[in-house]
């Protein structure tokens, strides 16, 4: 296979390549012995179809089963496509949150880091984010993708960044064990660090997880300093329900644009809220052709729900770096028509899958 057959895979997010052509090239890349990763070359025999022939475009990504559970055990070196060369090493290895057992791992090669952050930066510019303003990023780094996405976004806008790190796995463990006091103390520790930065530095952009923003909203001194200094607030890392979003935008931080980001490890980037939405519209996230495709399906049948209806979010990541097709997220969202030039669906009002309330009997009358 001549290497120029893969030229299209080097396309940037705004080069306007045909997504179906891109997907076909990606199938050739990931499933050709000279270029594919050990993981996919070994896995292809058990797929029951030949991706190089049967996947003719974005829609055919649905042929793949959801294989993301296998990413909990695969060796990192087995995930790197051979086409990058013998000496190639991933720039990063990211891990999922680890809420449903062992974390799933993904690799980020240098070219994807560039393309991924380019699309984030471009979309943040559309929201008129200031260039060169000092950022405060309050999000998990290390194994977690979101911290890296935000740091790159700041860099893309020529902005130096201050950070406050956090360990969400520890917090989840505390909460699951009912150790609420300790979880609160940890949150307090994070807020203390943020307070020092917010009062002492000219912070122009705050990027934080939803729970941290909610926590800031309870301290009037923080609300005052953020409304006074910040020119944008970016939330991400977790969901934000539409009522909380509205409260933050209209009551807590009325003077600062509040911009949502939706992403996760398997997407290998973050989607920025569509610009220009009115207050009454839900928070819409467009996909990123030709790399990230979304669909919204009925969780029982797997069929797409009608536009405007709620269903389960299915994400496919297609790049030279990785192929993570047809990943059924635990999120639900409204299906929305995507912005011009993007294949698949856009999503709105993303929320976690509803918890199942058991029918067990607890003795007593309450």
């Amino acid at each position, binding site marked *: 296979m001549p290497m120029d057959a893969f030229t299209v895979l080097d396309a940037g997010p705004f080069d306007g390549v045909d997504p179906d052509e891109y997907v076909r090239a990606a199938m050739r890349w990931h499933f050709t012995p000279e270029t594919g990763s050990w993981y996919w070359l070994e896995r292809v025999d058990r797929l029951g179809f030949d991706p190089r022939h049967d996947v003719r475009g974005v829609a055919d990504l649905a042929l793949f089963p959801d294989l993301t559970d296998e990413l909990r055990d695969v060796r990192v070196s087995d995930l790197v496509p051979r086409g990058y060369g013998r000496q190639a090493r991933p720039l990063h290895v990211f891990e999922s949150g680890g809420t449903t057992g062992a974390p799933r791992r993904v690799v980020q090669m240098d070219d994807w880091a560039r393309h991924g952050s380019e699309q984030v930066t471009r979309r943040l510019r559309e929201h008129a984010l200031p260039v060169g303003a000092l950022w405060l990023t309050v999000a998990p780094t290390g194994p977690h993708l979101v911290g890296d996405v935000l740091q790159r976004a700041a860099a893309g806008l020529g902005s130096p960044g201050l950070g406050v790190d956090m360990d969400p796995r520890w917090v989840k463990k505390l909460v699951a064990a*009912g150790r*609420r006091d300790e979880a*609160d103390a940890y949150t307090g520790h994070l807020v203390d660090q943020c307070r020092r930065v917010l009062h002492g530095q000219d912070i122009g952009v705050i990027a934080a997880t939803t729970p941290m923003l*909610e926590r800031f*909203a*309870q301290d009037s001194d923080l609300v005052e300093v953020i409304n006074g200094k910040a020119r944008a607030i970016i939330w991400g890392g977790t969901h934000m*329900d*539409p*009522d*909380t979003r*509205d*409260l*933050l935008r209209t*009551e*807590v931080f009325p003077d600062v644009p509040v911009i949502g980001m939706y992403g996760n490890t398997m997407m290998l980037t973050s989607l920025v809220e569509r610009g220009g939405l009115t207050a009454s519209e839900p928070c819409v996230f467009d996909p990123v052709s030709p790399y990230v495709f979304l669909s919204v399906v009925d969780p029982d049948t797997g069929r797409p729900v009608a536009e405007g209806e709620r269903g389960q979010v299915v994400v496919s990541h297609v790049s030279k770096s990785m192929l993570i097709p047809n990943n059924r997220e635990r999120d639900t969202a409204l299906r929305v028509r995507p912005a011009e030039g993007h294949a698949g669906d856009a999503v709105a009002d993303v929320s976690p899958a509803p918890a199942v309330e058991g*029918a*067990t*009997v*607890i*003795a*007593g*009358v*309450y």
Partner: protein
Amino acid sequence: MARVPATEPLYLDALGPRGTYRTRVPSTVTDVAGTPIARLSLVPPLYVARAIGVLRQAPPIAAAGLETVFATAGEVFAAGTVGGLSVREYERLVSRTSGTPLAVVRAATRGTAHFVRHAASSADRGRPRGAARDLSDHVLHETHTVWARQGDVFAVNASGNHPGVHRAWLEALALGYRVAVRPSRREPFTPYRLVAALRQAGIRDDQLMLLPTDHATADTLVHGADRAVVYGGDDVVTKYAHDARILPQGPGRSKILITADTDWRDHLDALVASVAGESGTACVNATAVLVEGDPTPLAEALAARLAVLPSLPPQDERARLPVCPQERARALSAYLRTVAAGTHAWLGGGGIADDLGDGSAVLRPAVHQTANARAPQLRTELPFPCVWIAPWTRADGMAPLRGTLVLSALTRDRDLWEALVAEPGIANVYFGDQPTHWMSPGVPHDSYLSDFLMRSKAVYEGPS
């Protein structure tokens, strides 16, 4: 709670710091048959946190106008149109959603109004004799003590088993606390009506709120308040056992004790009422009857009286038994059968779920007899008339009588009276022909609520 044409749903909005608040996608309240009845706005944690902040800033209700406020609110609750609902419409909705028989709901309306009217004097009953009401109370010069709040904000994580549970927090309001009520998602109508009635009577939006939330957000409310009452099962009691700011209200495990010197036949009405009055869904309904001597005739007679109660939809005026969704009824029935293994069933042994054919089912009474007073079944409290009958001997002593909210004792033994009153494991003791579910304003339910909310503070005023 805007009244709207029949084609549109009824909205139960949050009653927050700035009036009503409706979420974008309110949750559905269904009746016992699964039919949507209303749309309840469950507010997110951020809303709760900000609401608590507002409550904290608000002044206590002025003591001066308190009697008038409660008198007016009592009238509004009992007879007024609140949130677009007349009292009759309100009662019907409570009955359809909670499955509580209409007659029980109606009696509860009158009862709650009575408690509202007496809330101020009732709250004051718990004040120690030496403690002055406030700085202007002249007893202060004598006692140098003032009754003072232990905090500002009181939260209630309420249950929906009986409309009467909302009488408890009225005293907190009377004591100057600002109050946030999280309604049960099954029956939010009563707290909505009570909060709205009190607001109509003059309590400000920043002093009293109705904050419906999902299960997870309830924690934000409970932990954000200075004092909170939380209703639930043994799990809830265990969870909060070591938190001095939280008063858990768990299973009541109320009981009746009948000694050999008393003929139970003279008190059968009170026994039936203790088990099945209030439709058997209250924590003050009897879970166990302990009899000195052979309990068999009593069990047989009680079963015969309970067996004739009709299976009817809750909104039927003749209904006396609770109704719930069919699936839950079957789960309760299966649970009872498991628990009852090894006992003798006088009633309900073949299952207690009686389908009404519309997706709901009546929970029929159950009477079981255990071999002795130590049987673990005696602690199994279920939300319908379900009673365990056991023999009791003097050798069993106090042990089987502990862990009890109300003990009705049918006995002439004065030494036993003294022992029961002295027993810390029994919260309330009623002697003679009084059903376990008797309550009255100013009489403690689980000690005075003020024992949890107030403290006595030394205040000395020297020459200045």
